[in-house]
């Protein structure tokens, strides 16, 4: 298995683990339109031995392609016009930049807890409706 080592893998089992993590993330991301990172980041960091920053960055790389595939699959049954979605894209991208820049200045611990409660409220609401 010299060729595996040449491309950076220690063993065949590492390739299998990568493949399984990818499949799991793909299913979750396709099923919910989000959430691939919830699978990729922890598994990349633990069983695939990446540093936390590498795990996060590599997961963005993987999810970009998985999302494109899901968009193509969804487009058979869903259609939206650019007129409908541009406020989501422009607002979201601008907010993402501001959020990343504000990261060091915010009490992230408390913001995270407040939004965790919001997400839990949303979970209860999704169960009830």
């Amino acid at each position, binding site marked *: 298995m010299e060729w595996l080592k040449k*491309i950076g893998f220690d063993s065949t089992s590492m390739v299998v683990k*990568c493949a399984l993590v*990818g*499949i799991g*993330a*793909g*299913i*979750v991301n*396709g*099923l*919910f*339109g*989000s*959430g*691939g990172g*919830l699978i990729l980041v922890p598994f*990349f960091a633990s069983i*695939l031995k990446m540093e936390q920053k590498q795990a*996060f*960055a*590599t997961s*963005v790389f*993987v*999810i*970009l*392609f998985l*999302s*494109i595939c*899901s*968009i193509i*699959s*969804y487009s*058979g*049954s*869903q259609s*939206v016009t650019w007129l409908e979605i541009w406020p*989501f*894209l422009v*607002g*979201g*991208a*601008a*907010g*993402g*930049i*501001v*959020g*990343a820049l*504000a*990261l060091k200045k915010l009490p992230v*611990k408390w*913001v*995270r807890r407040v939004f*965790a409660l919001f*997400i839990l409220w*949303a979970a*209860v609401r*999704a*169960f009830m*409706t």
Partner: protein
Amino acid sequence: MTEIFNSVIFTLIISFICGAISGIGIGGGSILLIFMSLILNMEQLQAQYINLLYFIPTAIFALIWHIKNKLIVFHKGIVATIFGIGGAVAGSYLAMAIDPWLLKKIFALLLLYIGITQLFQKEKKPEEKK
């Protein structure tokens, strides 16, 4: 016309807030989805479709940054992507095949998981980084 304008402004503001929260690293990409599905009462599948589209420009900007900083482990990422594509197509067709009511309930379970993990997630102290 005023109604459309107001709805565009409202969506821009909410998307900006959702984007900022995601930019901090909170919510695993679910915040805008929650807003569309539970507050705007959009159909779950349409909300998921828009959430996927919304991720693309943000991810491209983030990737440029990550590539410059040499943070992407390409060989592992490429293998995960190649096999993940099969999972993504299967997951997408599963989402379209199952009852929207059931999809929303499974989504609620995902939110429950995200909410609990975010609530108890420990923040890393700067001195831990070596």
